């Protein structure tokens, strides 16, 4: 743990724009969007954080500022220290951007593709920013808070098959599950786990379909 604390104080001495981030486990810092690559490179080359454990993003819901935060978890294979670095994404909600760190860690390649796929975050200078879990041409970013749990009906990825079969990817029927609990302050009845959209199910079709 002390190695992580040392690394944090060293990086804070070097870059005055870094602030502490509240954390329950490893030391964590917030870095401005523009400095993220420089700070991470310094941490890698001077702090000894040679392994990028994880790279992900958080959606703080519509209207929040910043709406999206990119989070990096670094690990040192020598001192076994771990730290968390976070940076806000800038730009429109439809295309938040953050600089890519693929040149620092090739491991970031797939992680950034996943964050792009799930949140629509544009990683600038990423060599190959394609979807990775959903198919090419899928129109939504499913981990965004406004995307419904049941999903949204879309065309099949293979257009020829779609034309032939007149089929499409349909949303999941929510009747009977998953039983969804709700977070936040509300009364017990509302917080109780239940299927949230009971207006349609396997037997009776969705009203507007």
């Amino acid at each position, binding site marked *: 743990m002390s190695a992580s604390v040392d690394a944090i104080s060293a990086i804070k001495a070097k870059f005055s724009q870094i602030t502490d981030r*509240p*954390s*329950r*486990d*490893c030391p*964590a810092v917030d870095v401005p969007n523009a400095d993220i690559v420089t700070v991470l490179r310094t941490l*890698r*080359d001077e702090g000894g954080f*040679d*392994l*990028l*454990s*994880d790279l*992900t993003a*958080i*959606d703080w819901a519509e209207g929040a500022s910043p709406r999206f935060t990119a*989070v990096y*978890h670094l690990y040192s*294979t020598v001192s*076994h220290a*771990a730290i*968390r670095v976070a940076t806000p994404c800038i730009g429109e909600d439809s295309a938040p951007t953050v600089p890519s760190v*693929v*040149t*620092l*860690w*090739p*491991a970031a*390649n*797939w992680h950034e593709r*996943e964050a792009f796929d*799930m949140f629509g975050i544009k990683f600038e200078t990423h*060599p*190959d920013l394609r*979807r*990775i*879990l*959903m*198919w090419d041409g899928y129109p939504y970013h*499913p*981990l965004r808070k406004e*995307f419904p*749990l049941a999903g949204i009906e879309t065309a099949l990825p293979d257009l020829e098959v779609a034309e032939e079969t007149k089929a499409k990817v349909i949303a999941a029927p929510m009747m009977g599950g*998953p*039983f*969804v*609990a*709700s*977070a*936040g302050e509300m009364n*017990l009845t509302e*917080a*109780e*786990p239940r299927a949230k959209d009971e207006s349609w199910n396997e037997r009776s079709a969705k009203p507007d379909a």
Partner: protein
Amino acid sequence: MATEFAFPDSAAKAAGAEQDFAPEKMSLSMGPSHPSTHGVLRLQMELDGEILVKCDPVLGYLHRGDEKIAENMTYNQFVPYTDRLDYLAPLANNMAFAIAVERLAGLEVPARCQAIRVLTAEMARVSAHLMGLGAFGLDVGAWTVLVHSLNQREHLYKLFEELTGARFTTSYTRIGGVTRDVPEGWLGRVIEFCDRFEPALEETLALLTRNKIFQDRTVGVGIISKEDAIAYGLTGPNLRGSGVSLDLRKDKPYSGYEQYEFDVPIGSKGDCYDRYLCRGEEMRQSVRIIRQVIAKFPRGDWYAKDARKIFAPPKDKILTSMEELINNFMIVTEGPQIPAGEVYFEAENPKGALGFYIVSKGGGVPWRLKIRSPSFCNLSILPKVCAGTMISDVVTLLGSLDFVMGECDR
């Protein structure tokens, strides 16, 4: 380490030199349903004769949206979903998830609960490595190994069934404890299993370790250098096979791993054979840990009794006391009450470091839950290692990387 990694694709594009391929190059799609891709991985390959020029893994065929689902249910409801990540070692996943949430709650579980979790996680490691070993043998043409290893795994599954009620999808942990204490006489049966398993393991490994055909297929094939392994974020036996001594059980001990003595095997060359040797030795070490856990199995509680708002009270109390009934109702409907904050916890799973990054705004439902799956990270090195190898070696390489698509695609 002051290096920049250049990507050939982007460099070529930047120079305006759009590469057009000579007509004799063949493009081949392997998978998503192919026996050696261990599930539904698809490799989009470009071949020059038998040599791979380019390999592009296509993922997502088993994507269930676990992270989205997690945001919409309580912590305990998500435990069954963790079974289905690395479905060869569900007990280890259960444990990793429970510890991550407990770290967020600042909750320490009793010594007996920790011991049970370590015991089950090591048994899961043996079972996962047995399957990995058998499938790897099958990939390179050694059929007998699979029969031997599945035989041993069956004994483990019987023990899992006795403990958790399920052979495969165990859902054994809860936040703040486990679902039930170990049954009467069960520990003795685990020791009996160890006694039978140790000679059987040596017999199984002897089928491969000095086998000329196996060595010809694996030695010097799919070499991953130490630097590459770290840069691509490999973990687990794949990283250790490349000679990096990183084992989270030793380096950042959790759940009382610091009390047990075990060695961390590392490879020297980083080829498929080294990764096989590492897995074999890890099974021996796991049995060593299992014996130690049982030898000093602590008495006492098997769940956190003081965690009133997190772990549901025992059934007999619920049926006899009004307050406990209300408490149980609150935990079931609203979920375990976890304070706001964020936590990242990685556990050393059979496939590598399984990480959970949980952001909580308080209450029983996570705001964001990211699963850092080791198979996903381990596979990301595939385009790099595959370039320039023979197509038959790709099968060996996939077997030696030992990935599970359920975890990779989430």
